[in-house]
């Protein structure tokens, strides 16, 4: 990171840097439940998000840029997710994949389910569905990429420093109004 969090980079450099981050989203799949299967489906032949530069080769959090939380987050698991997120190097992005990680989903009234992953880590893009179709994940990824292309790394890191819990909303302020809506449902998933 170095100086990047202190100085606003000149526009061409910023463009190239954002372009690099946009197309190199090494992805750590926090596969928790059903949605993890659809995540794998999205990485295989028919959908193949590697086309978009989302590389699912990050075996650990240290190499990851994108954390996809797919599935039900339980109270027992929550500290591990938080810790994993903390282990990731900045700048990092989070996609909440599926109803359970968005809000608790079908287990909204369970005694052991955390009501959404955004209670413990900031989320950039929510993909709804139970589970969402792989196409919905692709759409969510493209929305995230649009957002990365338009963002300022300095502002993002400043936002993280200021309020780690609320990064999604803060970072959105630096963006155009269009990409602000990435926090809204990306696409209707399968009702299955």
């Amino acid at each position, binding site marked *: 990171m170095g100086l990047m969090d202190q100085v606003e980079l000149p526009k061409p450099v910023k463009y190239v840097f954002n372009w690099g981050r946009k197309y190199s989203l090494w992805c750590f799949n926090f596969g928790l439940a059903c949605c993890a299967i659809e995540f794998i489906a999205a990485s295989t032949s028919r959908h193949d998000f590697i086309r978009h530069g989302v590389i699912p080769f990050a075996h*650990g*959090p240290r190499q990851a840029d994108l954390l996809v939380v797919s599935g039900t987050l*339980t*109270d*027992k698991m*929550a*500290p*591990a997710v*938080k*810790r*994993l997120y903390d*282990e990731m190097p900045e700048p990092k992005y989070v996609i909440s994949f599926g109803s359970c990680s968005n809000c608790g989903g079908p287990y*909204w*009234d*369970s*005694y*052991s389910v955390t*009501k*959404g992953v*955004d*209670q*413990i880590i900031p989320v950039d893009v929510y993909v709804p569905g139970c589970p969402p179709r792989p196409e919905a994940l692709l759409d969510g990824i493209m929305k995230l990429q649009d957002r990365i292309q338009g963002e300022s790394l300095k502002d993002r890191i400043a936002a993280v420093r200021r309020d780690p*819990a*609320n990064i999604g*909303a803060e970072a959105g302020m630096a963006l155009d109004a269009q990409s602000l809506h990435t926090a809204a449902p990306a696409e209707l998933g399968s009702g299955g």
Partner: protein
Amino acid sequence: MSVLARRDRALTPEETEALLRDRLGDGIIGSTLAHRMFTVHVAPSAWVDTFTRCRDEPLLDFDLFDTLHGVDAREDGFDVVAILYSTSTGNRLCLRTRCEGGRDTPVCPSLNDVYRGANWMERETWDMFGIEFPGHPALEPRILTVENFEGWPLRKDFHLASRVAKPWPGVKEPAELDEDGNVIERVPGIGDAPGPYVLDEAMAAQAIALRQVSAAIDAAAGNEAAVASAEPTVSDATMPEASAPASGTAASTDPAAAADAARTADEQRRAQAEARARKAAERAADETPEEQA
């Protein structure tokens, strides 16, 4: 390929019961055959012996330990049900016993020495119902729920916090509507789900209990400051305000009081979750950093 090798020699339910009665005498209380399932009721004192017999009698030969679980038996306490299956005769046998100790201290002898599969099943039953299994090597820590979980979730007097804190806003509540879709008015007892519209006494009691529990946890954690700051740090945007009951539905209760109770319960639940997360973080910090990679 021993499967069903001896299906022609499989005992009928009557013969099975007769054989068990012959071996165990008064330990066998009775039997029922309903919904295509044959259940033998066993006294707790004969519980382990019955399983040993079922396993070792050549005529019975129940080798597959299928399942073991608890059932809430209302005021009588708790039942423990186990199901055995014989791969050679194709017979299935359900054995059921009522725990000693009522609802307060339910106790059932452990089958761990008879069937290995009983180990985790009993741990789970303890986790869900709080039934003690003397003879089990280690019921703790809780196998499914989070380690410092309070209460026994599958007991009928354990109400779901979300249902207590956030009444279900829709009109379709299966547990509380009669066949014409009208709200059933009744005094809540063991086994009744808390209704969506009426925050009844049971829930108020639970809210108080939750408050006490979280206070105890906070005291144990010795971190009052965190409790004080718990409210603002939880992002309000992500957690909708404790909703007031839907207007015009709760005729029997004062809406303001209900909303208060709901809010209190909600806060308590949050505080509890915070304390839990803090404890978990402390635990995690004790471990070496690579362990959860």
